[in-house]
């Protein structure tokens, strides 16, 4: 009788574990079969196509990585998901867009071409200005977001700041929509950096295009990631951030101004998201109010994939997610419309089977 009751008491957990494992095995098995079919039997694509997928995946992955770092930094320090981070990125995209528009409207005539504008007269300077404005606007958004929506809730139960973050995200989206109209707009690039032009290399007998915008985005994202790593590991600010992430109270006792560190964290993560946003605009070419949502969720996936709270993990996770997302549909032989499903599926699977991510965060189990 006791055995019976104890069995019936344990049954749901047991069933849950069995079903969990069954789902996992089925999904992995299905993926393996599909990938084997595509790669060795059907072979629908040549090497050049795979290289093309990989390049676009790396470029997008760099942007995901930059956004994911923001999630990871905030999670490491406050233990909350900054749900509005995608909106911070979107605002950065808008900042860069308006800067480029303004520069395009500014005349800079030369004797050779009298109706030249500033944007095309000084393309690199213009892009630099756009990045500066984008990061500045996004940093400011991050700063005020923390100050208004999160700081009053510092000691509230865990769900409360998350709901506040969801609210802030909806608010920012709709504020941008109401201010700047719901329409989709083309991002204004300088002519030399127009989308779709670049170097072409010969791979396996056909030309693969490496766009200038892609090279710019990817190299800039790598530079920013290295810069952030140095900032966190080598400087006073970074040491303070690490101290607060480990233990807020002790850090405060050691003379660290916790509020200032948290503000700085939001500024830094906002700046990275803003830079990613301007890259997004320059490379993908569209800007609209809802643009931050999907990259936001995907970057969160990347952060979880790498182990949330772990900065190198977020970088690796971003790049891996970008690659998987662009190669995955082709490798599994499914429709490209289902690209987003792959990202969400990865998120769900990682959270269910290995919540500590690839590189593993130290204390994620107790935070779960």
């Amino acid at each position: 009788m006791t055995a019976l009751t104890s069995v019936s008491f344990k049954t749901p957990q047991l069933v849950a574990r069995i079903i969990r494992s069954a789902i996992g095995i089925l999904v992995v098995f299905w993926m393996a079969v599909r990938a084997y079919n595509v790669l060795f039997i059907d072979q629908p694509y040549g090497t050049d196509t795979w290289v093309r997928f990989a390049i676009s995946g790396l470029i997008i992955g760099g942007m995901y990585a930059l956004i994911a770092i923001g999630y990871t930094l905030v999670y490491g320090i406050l233990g909350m998901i900054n749900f509005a981070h995608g909106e911070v990125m979107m605002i950065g995209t808008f900042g860069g867009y308006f800067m480029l528009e303004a520069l395009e409207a500014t005349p800079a005539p030369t004797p050779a071409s009298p109706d030249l504008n500033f944007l095309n007269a000084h393309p690199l300077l213009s892009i630099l200005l756009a990045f500066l404005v984008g990061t500045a606007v996004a940093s400011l958004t991050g700063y005020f977001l923390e100050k208004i929506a999160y700081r009053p809730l510092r000691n509230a139960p865990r769900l409360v700041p998350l709901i506040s973050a969801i609210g802030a995200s909806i608010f920012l989206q709709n504020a941008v929509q109401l201010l700047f109209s719901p329409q989709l707009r083309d991002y204004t690039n300088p002519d030399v950096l127009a989308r779709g032009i670049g170097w072409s290399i010969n791979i396996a007998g056909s030309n693969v295009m490496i766009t200038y915008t892609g090279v710019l985005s990817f190299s800039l994202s790598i530079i920013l990631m290295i810069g952030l790593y140095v900032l966190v590991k080598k400087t006073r600010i970074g040491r303070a951030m690490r101290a607060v992430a480990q233990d807020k109270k002790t850090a405060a006792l050691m003379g660290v101004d916790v509020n200032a560190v948290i503000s700085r964290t939001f500024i830094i993560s906002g700046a990275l998201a803003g830079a990613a946003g301007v890259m997004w605009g320059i490379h993908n070419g569209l800007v609209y109010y809802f643009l931050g949502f999907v990259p936001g969720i995907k970057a969160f996936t990347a952060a979880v994939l790498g182990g949330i709270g772990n900065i190198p993990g977020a970088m690796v996770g971003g790049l891996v997610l970008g690659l998987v997302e662009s190669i995955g549909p082709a490798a599994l032989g499914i429709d490209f419309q289902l690209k987003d499903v792959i990202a969400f599926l990865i998120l769900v699977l990682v959270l269910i089977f290995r919540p500590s991510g690839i590189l593993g965060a130290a204390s994620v189990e107790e935070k779960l």
Partner: protein
Amino acid sequence: MKRNDSAFKSGLRSGSTFTIIVLFLVLIGFNASGSALLARLFGQAPLSGQLPPVVYGLVFLALLAIWQGASSTIASRHKGFHVPWLSGFSSTGLAGLVLAVFILVFGSLYQGGADFRRTLYALSPAYIKFLSADQSPVNGALINLFVLLIAGGIAGLAVVYLPFGKLWKQVKVTWLRFWNMDANRSLRASRYFKFGVYALLVLFCFFAPRLWGSYWNYVFGLVGIYVLLGLGLNIIVGLSGQLVLGYVAFFAIGAYTVALLNAPVPHNLMWGFWPAVVIGILLAALSGFLIGLPIMRLRGDYLAIVTLGFGEIIRVLLKSDLLTNFTGGPRGIQDIKGPSLFGFSFSSDVDFMYLIILAVALALFIASRLQNSRVGRSWIAIREDETVAQASGVNTTRYKLLALALGAAFAGIGGVLFAARNQFTGPEDHVLMVSINVLSLVIVGGMGSIPGVVLGAFALKGLPEILRELANYRLLAFGALLVVMMIARPQGLWPVGRPSLQRPEPESPPDKPEESNREVTHG
């Protein structure tokens, strides 16, 4: 003298936030919509696409200023500053100055033929003219400055010199005395009173759908469906404390069940509405159970994101070409056949309203019985502390799964009714925003509170239809509301009370000691 100075300064401080809010409202074009609403209240609703009379714009600004002036003055008085009304003047004066500069600059630019609509969407020439009260930019700026300054200042003065506080206290004391009268109490406790209230409600529910016309049937039908969804999510989030953001998935399952079983395209099954109701509820509950199984380990924000992922997967799948042959793809499913009973077809909106009222009443009954049962107490224990609940012998996995399945069942019937009423369902009916709307109404009403859900559904789904001039700003207000509620009133508008066996002690009025004595001898 120094004290005057600080009331002034405190006004400037609170006024800077107010200024930002006013400028933001101006930039998103809220002034036009707000004053159109005011104009409708006075029976002068503008035609669609046209701006209301200028006066209402100024009245709208004045109302904002009165609010700010009064609250800023109250804050100053609370801090003990010497001349508190100065802060009313200074705070709205600051906003007035900035607004005046704004109107001056943009008014002159627009007179010069500039157009900023490509950047700032709301700023059409007509709107700028409306803001400057149909005057030249200079006059318009001055008028706005004076309206804000005077309205805010007078509000501040009124707060200081008119006995609002005493009046309010008097009203409160009188009301409490009336409410706690012995006759009143015994009346409320009597069974006939309860029956009377229920009878009135039933009568209202019977006659109202016939009387108030199809538009209000549509609106309140939507409110009813959201009450169903809210009751379900209330079980999941409010009682068992699992933040599920993919709630719309269960709604979609209900909607697609009735659609696939009762539409000519794509399958032409035509099983009828009632089997579809049962199957929809069962399928939704089953999917809640199945989704629950793998995610039982997750808590808090991880759970939220995973369920959001599930919801998005379902939406993308519904939209993709993969399932077009099975679910109709991006175009959705049309011509869903409505219910019929004994040969009598529920075709009109009134019939559907009755159906929804019936479902809501049933759901309210089930939800309240569940909440006050052993199951409900277990859920609340899990919400408060899962580890402790488990240690006290609550089978957390089982109860969490039960909460998910039951909550999903409520969403299933909501989806069935929604799709059958619209005779259409498609991927765009099942976006993340539905989950967020339902979550907002549960939170605004008060997590775990059933009357709160009803109140929240009316506030978030009914009010926007009544204030339809402001429809564009609905989501903006949702977002702001979520943040503000979390900061100022996390327990919601109608928080759930702890069950108590004791008769609550009435609030003793401070200036009537003999009153409270009497109560004590009675209690």
